[in-house]
């Protein structure tokens, strides 16, 4: 099984009855992990490529900070999208929903005079309603999600324009803007911002502990076939990466608020998808709908809730984006759905459903984000940027298909 991009829990490629030596096992393990390894290597190669071609601008503290902030809404959308895609559906409406919610937040704050926090809460509820509307048609009425959300893409774009009356709304109050572009308050004086370093340190320790504990549990039940050396390499790499990003961020303005939001979302949704009953049901539906139904899973309700969740996540992305631009515009969020979908597929999800992970989608989103950022710094024209992103998406999925075929032929 090569198409999962689960970064932590390894899957095996063992065929019963064969007993290869330790070196053979390790090689086979790495071959089985080719997809995940490939994804990481691709990310590193792309970062290094831009680091060299931009003369070091890519990993400059200010750019890393911008990279996080400017990609946050795509990454947020990718989290909801990967869940929808795992269930075997798709959502084309998220870009329009971003615009609609952004517009409504502007209307609520400037025209209705609501406080910023009330507007945020109302907008998230509105997002849930949008999701419930689309989820109803998909789950209970049986219209394919492609059609329902294509309709939603048109309808909510229109709704955004109607809400704004053809104009744009600006400015927004400072606390609202902080959601998109603010930083956690600095607790230190000058130089390296200590809070960010502390957060980075805590995150690194948490990663080490959870990695070791997971491995201990798997060893106990003889499920572990990940070579210890590889486990250490992976863990060390992740820890260094976290530490390095924290160091870079601390030497600029500190931790972006949206990074905290994003981090919380990743932790929550990754564990929901990996270990919650709801997550299991989502994979079961995408893997085999009929078998899921015959196992007593309420398939319609799960589908409905997935769309409600996507609506809330789209609303959050809309708020972040609006706050960041300090502007509610009818053309906001154009093409976001495509970036989010591309991130999910680059991250190893299967078009037919049942396969994909939240961390995978995040890495896929980062690859797209770094491509965007690096090419912008290099002054690549937008038409070429689009061309290159298209080819990267195709290459990633082609690699997947190739891998699957290789795995399938090795069984026989």
């Amino acid at each position, binding site marked *: 099984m090569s198409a999962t991009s689960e970064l932590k829990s390894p899957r095996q490629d063992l065929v019963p009855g064969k007993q290869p030596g330790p070196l053979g096992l390790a090689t086979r393990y790495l071959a089985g992990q080719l997809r995940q390894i490939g994804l990481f290597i691709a990310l590193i190669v792309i970062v290094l490529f831009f680091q060299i071609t931009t003369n070091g601008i890519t990993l400059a503290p200010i750019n890393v900070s911008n990279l996080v902030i400017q990609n946050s809404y795509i990454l947020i959308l990718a989290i909801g999208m990967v869940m929808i895609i795992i269930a075997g559906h798709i959502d084309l409406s998220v870009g329009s929903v971003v615009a609609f919610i952004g517009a409504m937040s502007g209307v609520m704050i400037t025209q209705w005079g609501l406080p910023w926090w009330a507007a945020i809460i109302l907008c998230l509820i509105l997002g849930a309603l949008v999701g419930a509307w689309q989820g109803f048609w998909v789950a209970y009425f049986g219209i394919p999600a492609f059609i329902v959300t294509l309709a939603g893409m048109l309808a909510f774009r229109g709704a955004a324009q109607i809400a704004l009356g053809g104009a744009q709304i600006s400015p927004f109050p400072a606390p609202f803007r902080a959601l998109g572009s603010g930083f956690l308050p600095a607790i230190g004086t000058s130089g390296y911002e200590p809070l960010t370093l502390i957060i980075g340190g805590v995150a690194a320790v948490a990663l080490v502990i959870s990695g070791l504990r997971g491995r201990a549990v798997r060893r106990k*039940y003889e*499920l572990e076939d990940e070579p210890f050396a590889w486990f250490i390499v992976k863990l060390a790499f992740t820890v260094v990466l976290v530490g390095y990003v924290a160091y870079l961020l601390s030497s600029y303005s500190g931790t972006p608020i949206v990074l905290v939001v994003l981090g919380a979302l990743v932790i929550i949704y990754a564990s929901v998808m990996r270990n919650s*009953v*709801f997550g299991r049901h989502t994979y079961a539906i995408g893997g085999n709908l009929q*078998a899921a*139904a015959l196992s007593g899973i309420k398939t319609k309700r799960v589908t409905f809730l997935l769309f409600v969740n996507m609506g809330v996540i789209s609303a959050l992305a809309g708020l972040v984006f609006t706050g960041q631009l300090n502007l509610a515009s009818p053309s906001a969020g154009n093409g976001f759905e495509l970036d989010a979908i591309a991130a999910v597929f680059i991250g190893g999800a299967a078009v037919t459903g049942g396969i994909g992970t939240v961390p995978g989608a995040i890495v896929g989103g980062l690859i797209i984000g770094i491509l965007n950022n690096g090419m912008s710094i290099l002054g690549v024209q937008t038409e070429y940027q689009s061309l290159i992103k298209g080819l990267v998406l195709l290459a990633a999925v082609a690699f997947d298909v190739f891998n699957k075929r290789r795995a399938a032929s090795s069984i026989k």
Partner: protein
Amino acid sequence: MANTILEMREITKTFPGVKALQDVTLEVERGQVHAICGENGAGKSTLMKVLSGVYPAGSFDGQILLDGKAVDFKNINDSEDAGVVIIHQELALSPFLSIAENIFLGNERSKLGFIDWNDTNLEAAKLLARVGLRDNPITKIVDIGVGKQQLVEIAKALSKKVKILILDEPTAALNDDDSAHLLDLIKSLQGQGITSIIISHKLNEIKAIADKVTIIRDGKTIETLDVHAGEVSEDRIIKAMVGRDLESRYPDHTSNIGEELLRIEDWTVHHPLDATREVVHHANLNVRAGEIVGIAGLMGAGRTELAMSVFGHSYGTNISGTVYKRGTPIKTNTVSNAIKNGLAYATEDRKRYGLNLIDDIKRNISGAALNKLEHLGFVDASKETIVADKYRKDMNIKAPNVSVLTGKLSGGNQQKVVLSKWMYSDPDVLILDEPTRGIDVGAKYEIYTIINQLADQGKGVIVISSELPELLGICDRIYTLSEGRITADVPRDQATPEFLLKHMTQEREAPVNERDI
């Protein structure tokens, strides 16, 4: 006889590990209707696939002579060019194209690459007249019933200048009127010089239209009987079809039978797409604690439909009847209700309905009872692993650990995962639909042992199977099902293959006016 149109000589076809056909010989005379009889899996369909080029020349041993000349069909096109056309049990029509388009599919009436619609529809109308269908050729296939679709298939065969028409269980999905019409048509085609080979289980039907009957058992020709010479009787055919001794392929077991666990009363189910067609008709059955009950029925008798309709109304419309557990009526209208009330259903088609093949063993095993592993909405993954690993060892699932994807397991091991999944849901009654289909002999024995263990734990087990020896080998009591009706209920010691087959093929009394709706 000089009038032999088709001769198949010493056909032997081997699949990996199985000899599906062994020295089968078939001789068909011109202009006759020749029936082929045999149990499920006897090799009838394989023989017809050999004849129609589905299995190309070279993939089997033996010789096919058509009009006295040896032929080598490399594919279906070759055989159709020679006038041999097969109509499969599952019709191969494109639902959203018209009747005329379907008749000429792949063989379009065209001029310079463009369809000549006048010619298409005109020729189609002529062919439809030959099969006695008055529908407009531009009607879409979805808008006509299964009976008429069968006739369209025959019209399509006629358009290919058919000499030998092979029909694989043509009336299995038809109601009485449509069946009668179809049989008349086969007779009338005979008058037009078309030879028919008909595979059928229905003995009355064979007696009504066939000139000769060849019986196949275990991949071998048993005998060919001449209907007109008065050689054919139901008993004779059944004896020839069954005549095999029960080997000791079944573990010894004495059931300790207790009180009644489940009773299904007056259960009627209609076809999901055709609400006027009854698939299960006023069925009554029960199972007691510790008892293994068999349901014997031919394909299309409504076995799976009965089971799936009981299990959460997963099949059919207009379902009526009551399910009782220990004497109290229970709700089984959704799958989760059925599971809550202690039912489990292991499907006959594990790949389509039973397993998530792209997920691992442990998650498949826990799939129907995640609530047992749940804490505040999250699954206890360690406990799940322990549970799954216990089943892996107890059930002897051959895999290094429980993280192996079920798609990589053999059929027998997949079936063990399905059984583990339902055992973990801790049901009182398990309905096992074809539990040993596609499984090798060794694994079958293991599955039988598991079934016995379930009964010993005081559970009720219902086993649906096409294989009579299997039912006779493991069940305490056997129901026979024919055309959606329970036709017999016999204890094992009184059941014989002949008795079961007679009741499995028992047809409805002729005038039936009780059809509701």
